[in-house]
């Protein structure tokens, strides 16, 4: 199992589009992906958008990311990267 701590830094938090990206990315791996909000202690299945949305992680929320499975290391790396790059949001908002 891989465990990483990440902070949501994009301004709007884990809203629908960001969550969609996260879930799509998580879905590329066979490993289980789990996110735990340090604020609420709630756990989300990283492959379920509903579950991720219900974490309601706003900007500044710290999350523990756990990946378990064959490709756990790569999964953890790539998901952390996506979060740290703020979900590529800046270029996709319809506003420059």
């Amino acid at each position, binding site marked *: 199992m891989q465990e990483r701590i990440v902070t949501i830094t994009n301004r709007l938090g884990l809203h*629908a589009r960001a969550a969609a990206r996260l879930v799509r990315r998580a879905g590329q791996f066979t490993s289980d992906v789990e996110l735990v909000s340090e604020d609420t202690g709630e756990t989300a299945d990283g492959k379920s958008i509903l579950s991720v*949305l219900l974490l309601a992680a706003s900007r500044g929320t710290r999350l523990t990311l756990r990946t378990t499975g064959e490709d756990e290391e790569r999964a953890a790396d790539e998901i952390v990267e996506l979060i740290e790059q703020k979900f590529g949001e*800046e270029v996709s908002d*319809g506003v420059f």
Partner: protein
Amino acid sequence: MGSSSLTRSRDVKLRGIAASPGVAVGRVLRLDERGRHQFYYIGVSTAQVRMEIRRLREALEEGRARLREFKVRLARELGYEHSFILDAHLLMLEDERLVAELEHDIRTRRVNAEWAVRAVTDRAIEAYKNVSDPYLRERASDLEDVATRLLTILSGKDEFELSKLDQDVIIVAKNIWPSTVAELDFNHVLGFATNSGGLTSHTAIIARALGIPAVVGLREVTRYAKTGNAIVIDGAEGEIILRPTRSVVKDYSLKRARDEKRRARPQTEPASAAETLDGVRITLRANVELSTEIESLARFGAEGIGLYRSEFMFLNRLPELPSEDEQYAVYRKLAEATGEAGANIRVFDLGGDKLTLEGFEQENNPALGLRAIRLSLKVEHIFRTQLRAVLRANLHGRLRVVLPLISTITELRDAKRIIAEVKQEMAEAGVDHNAALPIGVMIEVPAAAMMADLFAREADFLSIGTNDLIQYILAVDRANENVAHLYQPFHPAVLRTLAHLVRVAETEQVQLELCGEMAADPLQAIALIGLGIRTLSLVPASIPLVKNAIRSVELERVRSMMQEAMKLPSASEVEELLARELPRQAPRFFAAWPSQP
């Protein structure tokens, strides 16, 4: 007046934000009613459970198929970036947890699929509503959107099948979701009126891109408007009138008919030049804020971009700043899209009432405070980053920069010094760029207008920003209802200032452009060319209308009309003169132009 009477009374006027110009007269279609299906709790037998689960699965599959289709359509018609939201909706329908929970609900509680969908999504929506972050709390509507879609499919009837509207409608909704827009049959949508939203809301952006009149930010329109009600939308004024009386409908129908005749379909003649009857060529450029507008430039016949409001890049991201590379990508897109015609990048006009940077306090009097160039010179690294991005992107076209809110020559000199330094640093570091970057001064402070000759000698061009200039000349905040009537574009002080600027530009042989809402109003645009302005920059959707106005007049006659106008002591007398004179000069366009301000 109580709300109950407002839902019935005639001529209910609501003010919102003018999001997309044009007049529409028609019937209301309340979009959010679409989802209010009657659905019932039906207890089912064990045998029927399998049947309900099959219905659910089929509905999910159909929902996914439709969303995929909409996603493609939205990406094609409005650009890739709009389609992301649909991906979230699609993922919800693909969400194994959601599907499992729905099936579980049907199985264990032995209910019909509709009931399960409602119950399960309501639980999720409820949980979402308890979130403390207001933005995220809003996202409950995504879930509602998805639930609605499923219920619509399950109920087997699309009461309002949006892609097959058989009559023209004006869409009234709290907010219009991209997924909804993707479904709309644009040929039957005359306009939009929404409770929420600002100039950069999806509704506004989409309406402008499509050239459909829209008023947003009406706050309570959904409380008063019912499907089938008559409604008038004035997208230029930001006004709607519900259940208008016959005379009001008549007035606006006339206005719309005139508008339409003048506007010509945007596609029809974008190529024809904006030339007066006596052969004087006027350049019409576009004011641009958003990426989606770039694609509409050609459609509306814009000759390059006269004003790119670069601070809009910050909108969704403050306090984070766009990186140099991100900005470069945007400026390059502008440069490539405008080619020879070029694009004016107004450097960040932040602060004041617009957008604030972290670390800067709210000011008591923001309009007169630390904003625009004042802020750029104070937080120089932001300015320098922007300049580097512009200089690099300038390799791909003809960019120019415009400095907003200049009031002293020192500001211009400081900005020029910084630009020179940035160029030198880039040259020394071997960074590819195009240093041929003309620098313009925005004339929007009366001090700058009075000193225009001095600025003309040190800048490459002048650009008049009428919105701020008028506010500062007349000391009127036009957003303040108590004094909005004093915001008068035809005020003699404004006309004298404009005439002065034209004279200076001629004497000093410097290029003069004008941007601002005046340029988008046909009457005011004609007045401006009569004063001697030759380049106007305006919202792209208004270009065809203003172009047709220009093509209907003779510049010589308009000029002498404005010479008369300059002698008049009040804005209302100027308006009266124009309203009397223009229909005579250009009956084809101005006949029966309303004489009211």
